[in-house]
């Protein structure tokens, strides 16, 4: 791998998250990735080296955790509390790394990092194998439908690069993946400390024929690259654009007198000029006659582009409307069956009156908890209350019908927030799962 710096004008972007604890060597792995991708600048390295020395790290070694654990409380406690975002680039790609906490009580922050990720790297200590925490991390990424799951089996140097030992750990991890329902995770044996199979494949593991971690990250398709042309078009309307409050500088008022467009970021799929679309909640079919951006009109736009669409008919569209390729709009429902991830100590219970924010709409809802996933056994158990950091299933009755997509089939357009009506805080994540699995 080379890291000739080039600008980001033409490179593609991959967002990935790392999950694991300090004990698994997560900070070392993140530090190693950044270091080997030459993303740590001289003054950062100097600061970290100086602090490492103060903390008793000897002989020029340094505590990689100091690079990523940016909060006072984190450095004092030696743990990651919240997601830290890190940025680096290789010749092939730009990366956004969401470095997530491993501890159970910060699962909400891991969910934050994972929902925007195309890939998640879960770290395991090769000596201990999969732990209860591994089970939790893999369950969360599986339930959140993360496209690419990479399990990095770390500290293989401490196993003496022993192939048989590693195969034993791999078999255990694969069995766990099957139990959890995780399809074909990538397994990579690494040593973050020694740099084996992190940026480059290692001579210490001649029996490993797969790619190094960074090579894999460089070649994985992002969510949009993977699905933009397969998924049906959908756009959640953010606003109606009418230049009545005045025009942008330099525009001719005559030309834009009757301008009207709806704005939004393409949630999924691709829209072309002339495409027929259905509009919720108007229930009307119309045609796209303009795809506008400040740089000029487009002939088509795929996710996640932000655009302004002009429609053939002057129909009732406003913030919260949903546009979808003709015939593909999900059935609007007044009751959602959802998998939920409560975040707060209060958890989620039957009878809770909440707000549901999906796409660009917020509606009132009432929660009925149905079941809880036992993370130790992956079994589903009846429940009326979910505690913080549980995963469970709830029905949410809504004040007005929403056309949410099935998360298992269409990903992000089936995700929503559950918001406390009084504090306004986000108390749970929900994913629309209309059918039992």
């Amino acid at each position: 791998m080379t890291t000739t710096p080039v600008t980001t004008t033409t490179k593609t972007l991959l967002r990935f998250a790392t999950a694991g604890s300090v004990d698994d060597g997560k900070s070392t792995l993140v530090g190693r990735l950044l270091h080997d991708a030459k993303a740590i600048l001289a003054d950062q390295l100097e600061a970290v080296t100086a602090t490492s020395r103060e903390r008793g790290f000897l002989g020029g070694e340094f505590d990689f955790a100091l690079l990523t654990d940016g909060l006072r409380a984190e450095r004092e406690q030696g743990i990651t509390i919240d997601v830290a975002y890190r940025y680096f680039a290789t010749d092939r790609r730009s990366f956004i790394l969401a470095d997530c906490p491993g501890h159970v009580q910060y699962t909400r922050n891991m969910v934050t990092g994972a929902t925007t990720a195309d890939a998640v790297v879960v770290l395991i200590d090769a000596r201990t194998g999969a732990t209860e925490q591994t089970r939790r991390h893999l369950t969360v990424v599986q339930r959140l439908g993360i496209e690419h799951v990479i399990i990095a089996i770390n500290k293989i140097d401490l196993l003496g690069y022993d192939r048989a030992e590693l195969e034993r750990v791999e078999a255990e991890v694969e069995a766990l993946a099957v139990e959890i329902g995780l399809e074909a995770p990538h397994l990579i044996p690494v040593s973050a400390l020694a740099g084996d199979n992190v940026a480059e494949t290692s001579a210490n593991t001649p029996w490993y024929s797969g790619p190094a971690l960074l090579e894999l990250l460089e070649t994985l398709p992002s969510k949009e690259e993977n699905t933009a042309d397969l998924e049906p078009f959908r756009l959640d309307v953010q606003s109606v654009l009418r230049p009545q409050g005045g025009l942008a500088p330099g525009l001719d008022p005559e030309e834009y007198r009757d301008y009207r467009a709806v704005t939004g970021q393409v949630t999924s799929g691709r829209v072309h000029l002339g495409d027929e679309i259905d509009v919720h909640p108007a229930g009307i079919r119309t045609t796209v006659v303009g795809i506008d951006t400040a740089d000029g009109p487009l002939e088509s736009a795929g996710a996640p582009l932000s655009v302004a669409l002009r429609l053939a008919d002057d129909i009732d569209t406003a913030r919260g409307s949903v546009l979808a390729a003709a015939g593909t709009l999900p059935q609007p429902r007044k009751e959602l069956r959802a998998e939920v991830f409560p975040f707060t100590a209060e958890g989620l219970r039957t009878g809770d009156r909440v707000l549901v924010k999906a796409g660009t709409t917020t509606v009132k809802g009432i929660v009925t908890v149905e079941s809880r996933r036992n993370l130790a056994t992956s079994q589903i158990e009846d429940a009326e209350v979910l505690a913080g950091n549980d995963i469970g299933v709830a029905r949410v009755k809504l004040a007005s019908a929403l056309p949410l997509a099935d998360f298992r089939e269409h990903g992000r357009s089936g995700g929503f927030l559950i918001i406390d009506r009084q504090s306004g805080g986000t108390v749970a994540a929900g994913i629309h799962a209309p059918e039992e699995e």
Partner: protein
Amino acid sequence: MSIDHAPLSTLDVLESEAIHIIREVAAEFEKPVLLFSGGKDSVTVLHLAAKAFWPAKIPFGLLHVDTGHNFPEILKFRDETAEHYGLELSVAKVQDYIDDGRLRERPDGTRNTLQTQPLLDAIAAGGYDAVFGGARRDEDKARAKERILSLRDEFGGWDPSNQRPELWNIYNGRHVSGEHVRVFPISNFTELDVWSYIARENIALPELYYAHEREVFNRDGMWWATGEFSTPREDENVIRRTVRYRTVGDMSCTGAVESDASDIDSVLAEVAVTTVTERGATRADDRISAAAMEDRKKDGYF
């Protein structure tokens, strides 16, 4: 016209994300305002806002906290830019607070931390419930932790250990009266992304960002402009050097770097191979401690 089905570049994705955020906030908040200093990051946010609402004009105003130690070139650029977009510009002045005794000058003469109170007062007086800023996560390790929509309590404080989860691209800006939300649309841009974007979009910047000759003196390894607010001590020699600024803050806390990069392409080339972070290179305010930014943010700073 774009080429059909070509994968979007990093800049396209980052631009779309920022436009989405700006539109969300404009739609959901009563009275947003954009913090505009004339620095490259706030200029970039303003450019993105213009694109988000095109062909309409930007539906909110600008706010600047003037420390009284700003480069005059920057203030001129600030005023001309506001005028170009036809936007109302409010200015909160640290000098007013010092003049009437609400704030006291610090012994070291820097005014960076003094901005917090005028900022919070201006937010309260303007009734702003959402405040756009140009902070980026790659700038600093505390900023690396902050959400895109970041809640501020009644005192303007940030609680880093209890941040709201931020899921998919659905932002929750709910808050109670007295609280407000800071919004960082270019959170995910790096310094190189910002410069690449400025080059691609041909965005006008204050001339300070490009190499120019200037009278400077060296202090703590940084080049300081001579001026009313940064005067050399007796042992510091004033010389003429070709320099440019990587960040533009106060004259009293922002240093220049030696550079021949006099246009956007050469700046871009320089940034691409830099070995020192922009804040570490040129900001005295961030050299105070490892948690300097976190402490200022908890206090209500940008």
